[in-house]
């Protein structure tokens, strides 16, 4: 026993390092292969613990930024213009608030219009955080399972597809953007009905792969979801073809596309809740005569 303790004490550095590395490796293996309850619980517990802080910070930033801007502005004022400048600043702040409200109303009106036109059941959510690494493209939303959010629900913006829900806690949800390198969305060239797979390529843009070599694809063609795979309804705009690549000897052609939605500036999104009514989107994509 004493010998064992002495050995443990002597090699504690190697034991701790090996344990940490093995545990990490085990977590990765479990998650990639099976998605066990232990990994999900750990992940959700950490996310649940941090999400209130993230939400409060995100909500405070806008207010703090405007207050800080006012403070900096005020410090540079001359003494004799103080009263006048204060009045202007107050009016400006009110104007900014009104402009911000007008922009928000405009965005929400577009979301509402989209919701009404598709006759599907949606949930509106605010974007409160981004992925903590540069390897993945995910965003954090301010609503979770308590509001009815479930894994694999499609997430949309007024202009088109955003991604799908990949992780849900009671108060928040993580969305994998369709530009993520490990995302794959069935895409359809709206003009010619040629299908392919849309996926991200790290920072090198979004690509649509596995397009038939003889398929008619030209720059400017609109790409919509094909509905294959059962996650995304058919007909949601994904983007427009930017370049087409036909490599000699290749079995398929590829194209890069410009996303319909500016994913770096998302503030509010719609989560498509009910699976039954997703088919309603199909009517929006008409086959050209």
């Amino acid at each position: 026993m004493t010998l064992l303790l002495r050995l443990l004490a002597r090699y504690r550095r190697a034991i701790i390092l090996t344990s940490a590395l093995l545990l990490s490796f085990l977590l990765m293996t479990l998650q990639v292969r099976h998605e066990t309850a232990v990994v999900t619980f750990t992940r959700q517990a950490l996310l649940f613990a941090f999400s209130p802080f993230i939400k409060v910070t995100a909500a405070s930033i806008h207010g703090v930024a405007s207050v800080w801007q006012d403070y900096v502005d005020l410090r540079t004022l001359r003494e004799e213009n103080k009263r006048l400048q204060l009045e202007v600043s107050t009016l400006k702040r009110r104007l900014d608030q009104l402009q911000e409200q007008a922009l928000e109303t405009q965005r929400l009106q577009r979301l509402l219009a989209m919701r009404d036109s598709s006759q599907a059941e949606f949930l509106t959510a605010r974007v409160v955080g981004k992925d903590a690494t540069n390897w993945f493209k995910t965003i954090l939303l301010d609503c979770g399972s308590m509001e009815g959010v479930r894994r694999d629900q499609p997430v949309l913006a007024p202009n088109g597809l955003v991604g799908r829900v990949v992780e849900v806690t009671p108060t928040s949800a993580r969305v994998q953007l369709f530009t993520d390198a490990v995302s794959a969305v069935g895409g359809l060239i709206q003009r010619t009905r040629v299908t392919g797979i849309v996926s991200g390529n790290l920072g090198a843009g979004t690509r649509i792969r596995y397009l038939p070599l003889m398929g008619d694809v030209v720059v400017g063609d609109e790409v919509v979801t094909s509905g294959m795979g059962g996650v995304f309804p058919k007909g949601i705009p994904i983007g427009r073809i930017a370049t087409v690549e036909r490599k000699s000897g290749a079995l398929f052609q590829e194209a890069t596309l410009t996303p319909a939605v500016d994913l770096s500036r998302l503030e509010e999104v719609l989560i498509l809740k009910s699976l039954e009514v997703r088919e309603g989107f199909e009517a929006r994509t008409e086959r050209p005569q």
Partner: protein
Amino acid sequence: MSWFLPGLLLCVIAQAVLLGPVSLMEIRPDLFLVLVILVSRRCSPERATFLGFVIGLCQGALSGAPLGLHAFTNSLMGFVIATLSHHLYTDKPFALLWFLLAGSAAASGMRLALLTFFMGPRPLVPALLWVIIPEVLYTAAVGLLILSSSQIRAALTRTV
């Protein structure tokens, strides 16, 4: 180390929310790695390994990455940096910059290798051009500012 938990919380908030406006080409500095380096330079390799593991778990939970990915790289980085810190003199800004560049590049390289192993091959050139190199440079620059903040403050005090 009473500042560890507040520091970790600050990192979480900064990485998820605050760094958005200062991202360059959608790349943000890896503050979690800077925290690992900061912690590892002040404690034993055993403790640095454990704290690196905890930091990595939190970073993994806030990203789409497999949960153990950052725990693996950060615990290994913590161990190596804590071991090296006792043998290398890294207080000079130039030495610290190289230390940060090497550490950040090693962590990014390990992540790419692990992602390839667990989730299939990644395109190497886009990964280098659009993720690894910008992230390494940005993290090293921000890390240098944070880690040498006491020296900067002392220099400013002397000047005043």
